[in-house]
């Protein structure tokens, strides 16, 4: 029953988010601020992780290719597929659930605890729209982060595979182009857009409806990470089943 109540509350929150809109001039500034906080502030960690995970994927693949009948170019093929299909959209989103999700939950939760949300409501402002809508719009720039992550992941794989002496540059480029299906990119970006919405709204729900004090803000951030990850993984399964099988 508690889960059903929470799911109902989540959808009611969404209804409120898309309800009465905040003044457009104020909203524009809020969206720009959220893009800076949520997206630009995450670029460093995304770039770092993408490059090194791409490199590790290439090394692992290369070290497991013992059969001389299997072409070396498969290292690039495997790196490309794992980075585009799963690593960048899904793995990076789980990382973002920790970084961006916790930030959203704790910032909204702190506002709840210190009565700032009540202050907005008393002023006649739709607090759900004011606080959550700009985050959703800002997160729609998330596919750019994932595109950069894909690029850096493959760059990391190239660097590790070529500089590590596992394949030649030509073999890597050949493998990278081998049996490329453009729809895989479409699939990855459809997932990314759905994940962006989840990353903005599930943590916002946990912050907006939290009760208690400073300790509970921390607990809400942890719970938010767990539930955002669960929703991401389940959504990933459903979307993959629908689009690829």
């Amino acid at each position, binding site marked *: 029953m508690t889960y059903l109540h929470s799911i109902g509350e989540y959808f009611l929150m969404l209804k409120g988010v898309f309800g009465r809109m905040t003044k457009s*001039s*104020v909203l524009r500034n809020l969206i720009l601020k959220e893009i800076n906080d949520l997206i630009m502030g995450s670029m460093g960690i995304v770039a770092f992780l993408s490059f090194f995970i791409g490199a590790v994927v290439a090394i692992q693949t290369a070290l497991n290719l013992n059969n001389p009948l299997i072409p070396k170019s498969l290292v690039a093929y495997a790196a490309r597929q794992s980075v585009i299909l799963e690593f960048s959209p899904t793995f990076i989103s789980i990382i973002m659930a920790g970084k961006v999700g916790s930030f959203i939950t704790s910032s909204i939760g702190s506002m709840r605890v*210190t009565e700032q949300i009540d202050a907005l409501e*008393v*002023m*006649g402002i739709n607090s759900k729209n004011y606080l959550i809508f700009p985050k959703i719009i800002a997160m729609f720039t998330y596919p750019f982060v994932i595109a950069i992550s894909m690029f850096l992941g493959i760059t990391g794989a190239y660097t590790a595979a070529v500089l590590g002496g596992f394949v030649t540059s030509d073999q890597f480029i050949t493998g990278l182009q081998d049996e490329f299906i453009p729809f895989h990119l479409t699939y990855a970006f459809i997932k990314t857009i759905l994940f962006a919405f989840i990353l903005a709204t599930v943590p916002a729900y946990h912050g907006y409806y939290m009760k208690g004090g400073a300790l509970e803000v921390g607990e809400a951030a942890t719970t938010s990470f767990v539930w955002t990850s669960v929703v991401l993984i389940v959504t990933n399964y459903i979307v993959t089943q629908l689009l690829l099988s």
Partner: protein
Amino acid sequence: MIEVKNLHKGFNGQKVLNGIDYVFERGKTNLIIGQSGSGKSVFLKCMLGLFKPDTGTIEYDGKPYSNFSDEEQRELRKEMGMLFQGGALFDSMTVEENIMFPLKMFTKQRKSEMLNRVNEVLERVNLTDAGSKMPSEISGGMQKRVAIARAIVNKPKYLFCDEPNSGLDPKTATVIDNLIQELTHENDITTVLITHDMNSVLEIGERIAFLKNGVLAWKGTKDEIFNTDDEAVTDFVYSSDLFQKVREAQQKGL
């Protein structure tokens, strides 16, 4: 003027407010006092529209809030100023941005006009140098004054204050009390103030409502509260040693 008629409110089957009738007069500081858990905050939140009453009506200058459309409720809220217990300043904004916030949201003024009004209220609350500071960089008393400035910047008709003195030293508390009273008189505002600070009652209690277990147990003025025979009120008022000694001194004619 705010008129409350037969107000009832409960949560999960438990009554918190039980048939309150009271009139908050315009141009006066109307205090709601009572012990913790007596229903003061719920009463205030009903008046602010944050809680919907189970039964009863709240009329703002003769117009019942429950009959208002959503748009009318929003319009009414623009005429309300609220001072929260902790100030509730937006911690990502400077003092100036906090005060300017209601103007930005609800008026079409130019930035220069808004800045003029912000400087005007900052001057009124004696905080002319604090405009560029963040809320975390100023003291608790200054935060309360900024919150007052934000509450009055849009020239409200109704000002609500939830324990404005909590966490303040007695001298700063007196400054805040006097400021609220002066603003009430200057702007002819209906001010409703929740407190359990008896110093506030002495300073600014022009009209006092005493709540006990969700019921309006007593009403009167600051002069009347110290002479009442009502046991519930005297228990509350003279619970501190200081006031007991004041009463003993009064009785001895000192």
